[in-house]
């Protein structure tokens, strides 16, 4: 018999129960549309406000989160989300501006967007920035569209190959697949760099460009980055930077200075926009001079220059060869840009550099503490994260077991099984907002778990033991495919 820990909102419903009520109609009433245009039933829950509060309060307790503890999920940059951001993004002037208002009435928003574009250009060394993409993956897609448009406009239409390292995020090849291009996988060398020989062999006149995450998903800054970029540029290709790991580079190096042509930012990783249980993200894209004219439309620009007594008028502009619109309206303004703007304004240039330095220090500190216990296949000074193997000689324990056991100690596990080039990968990104005591406790626990793996492997294989929920049957979920707790026949029964 299946035990229900918390009923669904549909199961909590009682016919006739009222929640929040709306005002009475204050205009003379008109007849509704003819019956054939009306829905016959509205099968939605009926609850009191207190039922709703208790339900979502209960659900919230089932979640691990950054406010509750350490969340070293590699590649996700789970840093602390400052509370002030939650206030600034909810200022009525931001909350209640309609995207189609005349620009004269939204200059506050437009100044913020314009400055955000300028700041991101300065941080990254790029010539232009669009704030429109909704998330990192959409930023990538915009970037690849621009690379394609650049070659096409030059009549260089035989370029169909995108070079992607074997350590890349899946979004890189998927973005390329959405455009019908071919992916050529480039191996990594034994120090975690792009294998230069393999890269050189792949560079020819059919290359669109290369998509490189740097630091890569092993947490390694490519030691030959300038040669890598020179090889790609040498064959006429463009260099895409996956900005997922930008947290390690703030004030350290600007991707544009290194020669990257295009890069997306993840404002929800680097600039503290909360992850929200999966989104919304925010994925602006920066480009070098070659791609400025191809940026998605619209951008924010100065549409009337300032005079002695009148400030400039900010408005929307469309680049000459724009690839078009990525989404409706102007980007994730309120929940994304306002929070990130607040964060950058409060850090300034030195504060941003501190972020990168302490993120890198924390990762290296954990790596040093765990080096003698876990095998670290690419062992050198890392950037903001590192990857170790979650397996031991002669033990049945796998990375997943270690992850699940960490939950018993009230830690969120690292990223599992990524990057694909490390066996039983555990990818650890502590971020700059964790203190030494937390890092020490985490390292101590991982060392203890390694011992348990030898002495009591079943403790790991059965983990988590001390959480509210145990391991899930993922096969049942995929085979039975119950995706909805509402079915028309359920409502027949309620009547």
């Amino acid at each position, binding site marked *: 018999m299946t035990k229900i820990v918390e009923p669904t909102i549909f199961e909590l419903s009682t016919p006739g129960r009222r929640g929040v009520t709306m*005002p009475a109609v204050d205009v003379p009433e*008109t007849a509704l549309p003819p019956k054939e*245009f009306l829905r016959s039933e509205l099968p939605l829950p009926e609850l009191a406000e207190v039922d709703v509060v208790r339900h979502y309060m209960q659900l919230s307790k089932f979640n691990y989160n950054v406010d509750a503890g350490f969340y070293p999920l590699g590649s996700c940059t789970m840093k602390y989300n400052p509370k002030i951001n939650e206030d600034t993004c909810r200022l009525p002037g931001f909350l209640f*501006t309609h995207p189609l208002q005349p620009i004269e009435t939204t200059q506050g928003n437009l100044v913020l967007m314009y400055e955000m574009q300028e700041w991101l250009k300065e941080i990254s060394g790029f010539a232009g920035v669009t704030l429109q993409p909704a*998330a990192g993956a959409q930023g990538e897609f915009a970037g690849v569209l621009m690379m394609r448009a650049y070659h096409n406009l030059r009549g260089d239409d035989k370029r169909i190959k995108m070079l992607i390292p074997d350590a890349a995020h899946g979004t890189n090849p998927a973005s390329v697949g959405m455009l019908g291009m071919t992916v050529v996988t480039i191996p990594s060398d034994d120090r975690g760099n792009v294998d230069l020989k393999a890269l050189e062999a792949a560079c020819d006149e059919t290359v669109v460009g290369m998509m490189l995450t740097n630091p890569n998903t092993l947490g390694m800054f490519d030691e030959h980055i300038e040669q890598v970029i020179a090889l790609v540029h040498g064959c006429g290709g463009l260099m895409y930077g996956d900005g997922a790991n930008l947290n390690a580079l703030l004030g350290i190096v600007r991707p544009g200075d290194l020669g990257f042509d295009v890069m997306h930012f993840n404002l929800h990783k680097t600039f503290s926009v909360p992850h929200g249980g999966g989104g919304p993200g925010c994925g602006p894209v920066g480009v070098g001079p070659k791609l400025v004219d191809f940026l998605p439309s619209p951008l924010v620009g100065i549409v009337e220059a300032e005079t002695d007594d009148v400030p400039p008028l900010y408005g929307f502009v469309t680049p000459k060869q724009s*690839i078009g619109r990525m989404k409706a309206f102007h980007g994730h303004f309120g929940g994304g840009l306002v929070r990130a703007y607040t964060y950058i304004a409060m850090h300034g240039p030195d504060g941003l550099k501190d972020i990168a330095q302490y993120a890198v220090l924390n990762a290296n500190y954990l790596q040093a503490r765990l080096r003698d216990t876990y095998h670290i296949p690419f062992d050198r000074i890392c950037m903001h994260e590192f990857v170790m193997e979650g397996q031991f000689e002669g033990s049945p324990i796998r990375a997943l077991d270690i992850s699940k056991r960490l939950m018993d100690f009230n830690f969120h596990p690292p990223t599992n099984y*990524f990057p694909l080039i490390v066996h039983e990968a555990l990818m650890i990104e502590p971020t700059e907002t964790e203190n030494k005591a937390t890092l020490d406790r985490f390292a101590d626990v991982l060392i203890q778990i390694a011992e348990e793996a030898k002495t009591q492997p079943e403790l790991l294989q059965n983990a988590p033991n001390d959480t*509210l929920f145990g391991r899930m049957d993922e096969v049942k979920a995929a085979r039975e495919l119950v995706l909805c707790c509402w079915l028309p026949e359920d409502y027949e029964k309620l009547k």
Partner: protein
Amino acid sequence: MTYIPTSPHERDAMLKTVGVKTLDDLFDAIPQKHRFPNLNLPPALSEMEAADLLGEMASSNENVREDMVSFLGAGAYHHYTPSVVDHMLRRGEFYTAYTPYQPEISQGTLQAIFEFQALMSALTGMEVSNASHYDGATAAAEAVNLAYAQFRGKRKKVVLSPAVNPQYREVIRTYSQGLGVENVGDEATNSELGPEALIPLIDESTMLVVLQFPDFFGRIYDYTKLIETAHAQGALVCVAANPTALLMLKTPGAMGADMVVGEAQPFGIPLWYGGPYLGFFTTKKSYVHKMAGRLVGETIDSRGQRSYVLTLTAREQHIKRERASSNICTNQGLLALACSIYMSALGKNGLQQVANLCYQKAHYAASELNKLKGFKVHFKEAFFHEFTLECPQPASEINQHLLEHGIFGGYDLGQNYATLKNHLLIAVTEMNSKEDIDLLVEALKEI
């Protein structure tokens, strides 16, 4: 301001463990000539200064809650959000969690998304919903991706109704430019025609027909016959629907649509100058393997408890890589939660009230405006809470006049439709009082 907790003493101890002398020594792999650039950014602000700065920027806008009366819609709608929604959203347990990769400690997010899927299915009359998309426009673009994958690229034509939101059509074109997809049907000359004008365009090469409900001009049609025609040619049909209208009107699911997508911003998500919003995507169970985005399914845990996991993940980019039909990895989790709480807090009764208020007020406004000399409700078809108003002057001039009266008039349709230069798209919601509507009417009497 800094959020870094490390003391200088702790820093030195950590550097010693790592085996380097200074923080700068950690960056030897970076080419020296580009290392440690001076960033030309404003100096750091304290929290108090930042709050003041942002406060000034926000208050320099004119907003539709405190400063102006607004009849703007056209894809984003001003509705009332019950207080309880934001109280729940502000719980760090929800907003500081990541994508629920570890289901044992993410059941809150997972069950909330599962319920969102169910609420959207119930609303649209469809069998399955995913965990959401970036917005209504990208959800529509993902419908094209689904259809492309379903026909494995063998059909390449998309028939777009000219009465689909112009921004949605732009996004569909952006997304499909690499796949050789042919988007037809929305040529400017067609803008006045009803949906039956699309029928001759639907043939055996058509993979998808995209419609909007109510359409961009506010009109309500029963698309059942059109959908049957498309199905007879083997094509799929996607309907982009307004969720508030679906509280009252026959669902596109009941009309036979294969996909019902749309913008859920009206359900508890602030206008926020255009984003982030919440795309919903619902379809039939038979297309679930081709659907993009996260999907939560029910299962049990090792202790026999009902629980939820991300499922069918092998469809997605992190496993399928270049063979995935979409690169999407986020959903709009927090906003899906806002939408679910909005729907739950108002409940069936409150939501029906919202729909009725929108309908009644819009019809009152239309009837009063229709009485004005030189003004006319342009289409004869039924509408819900948005309608096209024909004006005696270019819409841009009318809007300028209304702005002087503290009113955002409506969307200037001439921006997208050459034949509708004198036409405003007026949206009326429960936020517009009778006084607001009368103010609009009075202001237009001066024209």
